């Protein structure tokens, strides 16, 4: 098991979060962190998902994720621990000005 972070671009439709989380639940993968936010395209949202999973299992779940019609693009982020810390910071401190959030993301 190791920690992985996924950046997932999805269509900004109602129900898309449920669809993604149902898929993880079906394989009994526990999501450590999940953040959904807007992108510059109002039709597209970005999900950042951190989970603890074996490498080969990760590949299977991203394959399944990619099958979802509303999932546009999946990317594995290279430094999950740093991203996790940043997600913690965002979660713990609540809403912050855009500038501060951008700073937290580096």
């Amino acid at each position, binding site marked *: 098991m190791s920690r992985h972070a996924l950046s997932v671009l999805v269509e900004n439709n109602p*129900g898309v979060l*449920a669809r993604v989380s149902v898929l993880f639940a079906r394989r009994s993968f526990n999501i450590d962190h999940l953040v959904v936010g807007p992108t510059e395209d109002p039709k597209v949202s970005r999900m950042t998902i951190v989970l603890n999973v074996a490498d080969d299992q990760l590949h299977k779940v991203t*394959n399944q994720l990619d099958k979802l*019609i509303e*999932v546009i*693009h999946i990317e594995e982020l290279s430094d999950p621990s740093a991203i996790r810390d940043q997600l913690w910071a965002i979660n713990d401190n609540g809403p912050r000005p855009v500038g501060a959030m951008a700073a937290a993301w580096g």
Partner: protein
Amino acid sequence: MTAQPTTPAPAQPALPSTTTGAEALVDALLRVGAEHIFGLPGGAVLPLYDTLYQRPELRHILVRHEQGAGHAAQGYAAATGRVGVCLATSGPGATNLVTPLADANMDSVPMVAITGNVPSTALGSDAFQEADIRSITMPVTKHSFLVTDPAMIGPTVASAFRLASSGRPGPVLVDVSKDALVASTKRITDGDLAMPGYRPVTEPGQPEIRDAVSLMLSSRRPVLYVGGGTIRAGAHRELMTLAELTGLPVVTTLMARGAFPDSHPQHLGMPGMHGTVAAVGALQKSDLIISLGARFDDRVTGVRESFAPHAKVIHADIDPAEIGKIRTADVALVGDCRPTIAALAAEFRARVEAGTVPDYAEWVAFCQRVQDRYPLSYDAPPAGQVAPQQVIQRIGQLAGPETVFTSGVGQHQMWAAHYLGFERPRTWINSGGLGTMGFAVPAAMGAKIGRPDTTVWAIDGDGCFQMTNQELATCAVEGIPIKVAIINNGALGMVRQWQTLFYNERYSHTGLRGTPTDPAGRAPVQVPDFVMLARSYGCEALRCDDPADIDKTIEAAMAVDDVPVVVDFRVHQDAMVWPMVASGTSNDDIKYARDLAPQFEEDD
């Protein structure tokens, strides 16, 4: 011959520029080529039904239960290769479609389900007959839509058809709120949704095709492992070309029966838990599995770790998520089976013509010897009793290879898969992945609507038949003359077989006629009387309980072609499905009869 018009036809009266959501939905269905729809009305879809009343070009078949509508749409799709359509109201109407949707999802059946929902202002308020069917069906559909804007109905229906029929086919749900059906909207005549995340890959890469053929040429014991994807892709001709070009043994899974003729000498039959000794043995001993539209289902592999331990794998599938899901692939071919198999054959031919000659002779001879030594067989029934295998075999022989067969799930399904004898694709329609009892009768109804000139037989069990036989009423009223063979052994036969083999003959709740050890001393009773039941539904009905009458009963059933026919075949209760790989054991431990293991040559 008609004269060429010399004057321009009078202009069609311009259609009004606005339409209701319900009309937009029907227009969209007709635009994508739908001709038949299986459904049952209710409050939330009343506006849609009011529109259907004046649109006879879309034939609606009124079912007796929404599950029947769903399986009928599946049968229609599987028999014709077109998208099947079903329609239900909100709440319970929609939830009754969940089983067919899950079934279609497992077996990659192209299908669109339309459901009404409560008005959008009431969504989420626990209104009467409200169910969040879009969410309920998320894990069991290819996609599910909820539409509350009438302008989006047309594009969404068009997209649903595109999703259902392209890439890996599957079921798509379109849930429409009642107010969207009623509201007026601008009339549109084309267009669908953007769906930027949907980009199915249909053509395999040429480097991968070369790698695959290199592996085929350097292997000594390859098997063509053919799955249902070849039938969905219409790839049977390409498969025949590849098989005859290579001379390799072919196995066809439960979903692929008919993709390759049973009469062909290279065909070893069906692999898996109830597969033939030759098909199971060939996979176990192979050094290369060429998987074509198959998915290494657990019913094929048995215990995964001991499945085909020496085999490398070429895995061809249109769904990239299938590659490596169960078994690591040495070469992955992502694409539609038809161009994939054609490309494999072309590359193989070119390489052989360039001088690379594969050596499969010893392997082909070995497979042939196993097949000759362990043909399908069954024990003779007790004197005077009817063998279910014989009934099914005779139906197959008398009805002929053009006939479409559907089945339920259980012993009769396995016997049908083995003994009917399939020569053509789209003649065998069953519930493979989900294993839905009750599939046969409504699926036969749908198949018959899709192919009215073809004889359609449902091979059913007495347990299965009692789950969905209400659709006989639909068949009688709508003029759908299907034929149903009930293989009636008075028990939930497959479960009973497991109780015989693995639970010390403790027949816990599998006797449909009551239990022999009934504490109140009640005698076993056959209810319902299937002949009386069928007649009450307006069907012809026959019974056969004597082996001497099997042929003439089948012929009598075949002589009826204007109304549905039901035949109650009273068969021997202790008949079992063989061969069998017990659950949780290796395919190496296959038995071709009770306690009888085949001897492969190296074990002799």
